């Protein structure tokens, strides 16, 4: 890719930034965090009104039919303000796989609602002690013409508000992906709070009815496809988180006077901040490259792994730098910078931290040689 945004992409980014920055303030994030469900419903409605939820969904379901790169720009804008909305869960984990792998009926049943902002979705990609969705902790057993699911998925983002959760599960014929109603029979949700203070409940399935996404024989490929996009989405949010964290640190150290001059005039501070900027740009180029390859239909798994590794490794360096340059303010939860630190850590560890990505990347590269 040439890394220059098209007019459409620039417009999508500007619109997303306008909505996120126009409505999300640290006070509002704090207020939403104090509610039971911790989801900013008004912001969600505003995103739907601007058709940002359907940005990369097919025009047939009311979407705009744009690509992953455009979606990444929206996720980046979310990361900049650490907005408490289930965008990654609904669009990346839920809607994209339904659009790609679902039957025509499934697409019609769920996607127009996603575009309108009425339907929330998620996917269960982690089990206890495992981040490998190709060996899911859930088992599907045939029951007449349908399936019933058994097992425990941990930390399913936004499962407490989702209308459907996509659950990869083992069947006698390999892994399949199933649609599950998290409020239906045979499902217990156990509320769990994660590093960034979001609610990612554990999903205990004990005979819950599951509807096959599309057809069973696509299962394994669908899971790999989902994981690539899930990782990409995390990287995109991390760009926004890191970009904003560096900007906050630059502003703070430029305004705070110590030893008779702004803190940022000290080389120890300036060099640190510049390092943070460099890492952030590295996350951006690796993420955009992966998005572009996925959009172009090229093999992109190693590009995605490079991006996620750097979003984890470089990303945590950036949020450490930003937190550090804020001194004691970083430890005070009344001041917003700590949220970037928590989000950066959460994104780093979601679906496997730096070493897990490196292990997979090494396997991909060495296996290909």
């Amino acid at each position, binding site marked *: 890719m040439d890394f220059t945004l098209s007019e459409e992409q620039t417009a999508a980014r500007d619109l997303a930034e306008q909505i996120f920055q126009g409505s999300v303030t640290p006070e509002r994030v704090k207020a939403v965090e104090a509610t039971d469900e911790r989801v900013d419903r008004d912001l969600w409605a505003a995103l739907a009104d601007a058709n940002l939820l359907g940005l990369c969904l097919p025009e047939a379901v009311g979407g705009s039919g744009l690509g992953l790169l455009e979606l990444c720009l929206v996720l980046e804008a979310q990361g900049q303000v650490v907005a408490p909305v289930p965008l990654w869960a609904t669009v990346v984990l839920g809607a994209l796989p339904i659009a790609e792998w679902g039957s025509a009926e499934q697409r019609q049943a769920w996607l127009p609602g996603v575009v309108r902002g009425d339907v929330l979705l998620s996917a269960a990609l*982690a*089990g*206890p*002690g*495992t*981040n490998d969705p190709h060996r899911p902790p859930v088992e599907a057993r045939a029951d007449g013409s349908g399936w019933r699911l058994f097992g425990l998925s*941990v*930390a399913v983002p936004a499962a407490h508000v989702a209308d459907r959760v996509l659950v990869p599960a083992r069947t006698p014929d390999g892994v399949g992906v199933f649609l599950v109603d998290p409020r239906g029979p045979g499902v217990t949700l156990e*509320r*769990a*709070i*994660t*590093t960034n*203070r979001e609610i*990612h409940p554990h999903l205990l399935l004990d005979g819950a009815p599951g509807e096959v996404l599309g057809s069973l024989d696509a299962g394994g490929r669908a899971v790999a496809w989902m994981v690539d996009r899930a990782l990409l989405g995390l990287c995109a949010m991390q760009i926004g988180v890191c970009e904003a964290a560096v900007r906050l640190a630059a502003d703070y150290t430029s305004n*705070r*006077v*110590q*030893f*008779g*001059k702004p*803190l940022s005039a*000290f080389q*120890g*501070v300036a060099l640190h901040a510049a390092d943070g900027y460099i890492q952030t740009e590295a996350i951006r180029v690796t993420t955009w490259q992966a998005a572009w390859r996925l959009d172009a239909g090229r093999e992109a798994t190693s590009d995605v792994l490079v991006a996620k590794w750097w979003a984890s490794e470089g990303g*945590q360096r950036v949020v*450490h730098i930003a*937190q*550090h340059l804020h*001194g*004691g303010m*970083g*430890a*005070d*939860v*009344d001041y917003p910078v*700590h949220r970037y*630190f*928590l989000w950066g*850590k*959460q994104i780093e*560890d*979601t679906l*496997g*931290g730096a*070493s897990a990505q490196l*292990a997979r990347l090494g396997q991909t590269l060495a296996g290909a040689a």
Partner: protein
Amino acid sequence: MTAVAETSETAEQAAFRDEAHAWLEGNAPRRRHDSSEFKRRVAATGPEDEQAHVEASKSWQRRIFDAGFAGISVPRDYGGRGDTAALERVWRQEVVRYEIDTGVFSVALGMVVPTLLAHGTEDQKRRFVPPVLRGEELWCQLFSEPGAGSDLAGLTTRAERDGDEWVVNGQKVWNSFAHLADWGILLARTDWDVPKHRGITYFLVDMHSPGVEPRPLRQITGVAHFNETFLTDVRIPADQVVGAVNGGWGVAQTTLMNERALIGGASPLGFRDYVELARHHGKTADPDIRQRLAAAYTRFQILRWLGQRAQAAARSGQALGPESSVAKLVISDHSAQNGDLALAIEGAAGMLSGRDAFESGFWQQQFLGQWGVRIGGGTEQVQRNIIGERVLGLPPERRPDKTEPFRSIPKNA
């Protein structure tokens, strides 16, 4: 478990170690790496938990005093045991192996007592040291201000003389346990027309005085032991100045060096705790985790030997010097890496927080608590400057704020 002797231990030290070990065995539960009271306590963040922590600290400190192990290197005149710093170190090595909690006295024992012994008047030492050793009076530190952090000497809390008293006005921040403390050590500006380091005075302030208002700050770890403290027309008797009026900066150096030595050194977590964590999560065969454990082991060793070298220097009569900055930097890095290691070991489960996480979020707190270690007592950058200038002798930066009258130095709005 037997008492672990150090290689170069004298007969006196060995005898004392046996004595300490015998008392601890008879009076306190041993700390276990697989299930620790200490971890549960750290992870408990409610106000009732805090009160229980204070009570437990007071009661332990009193028992330690009654057994003759409080203030081991503090002269007998002030309630101590009158022994050497080497024996004090032996005690610390032994006591961390047990579930003994004197955490809220860390400022009093680790910072206030050494400062008073070095700079206090005879009356001050007799009045203030014994109640700390007996576990009766809690202390806090009132140094940092919203506008004076790394540049502590840029503080603007003002003290003005009025007869036999000083009247203090200003705001302090990051004051551990200020809302629980009986007494505070306070820095305030008493002369605005001299360079900043020469116009500061060191006070002992009664935290129950009218006009002292601590307000707890909720921290990223979920606890609220920090405060911002507002001081409005607080009156302090003139005999509660430590050292000379306008000579407080020198006195503060003793406190700060002891604070640096204290930070991080207080954690009873050892290498074994990380191995146990890996074992519990079934990660001991994971090659990446094994490498990181090996690196952690190396860091623990480096810190241990650095500590021993500093103690050896202390034994031979050298004052605690800028070398404490080296230890503080190593501990900063150690603390950051250990936090990451713990969460990496926990894997996906490491993303849970608070009570949803393993051991009620103790390890998440270790991760988030790294900032207290890295920022408190002077940031990594401040420590590097100290090493550059005072240890390596590099030419100092041109610093007009050191020589011009404080009144004319640019400050935060």
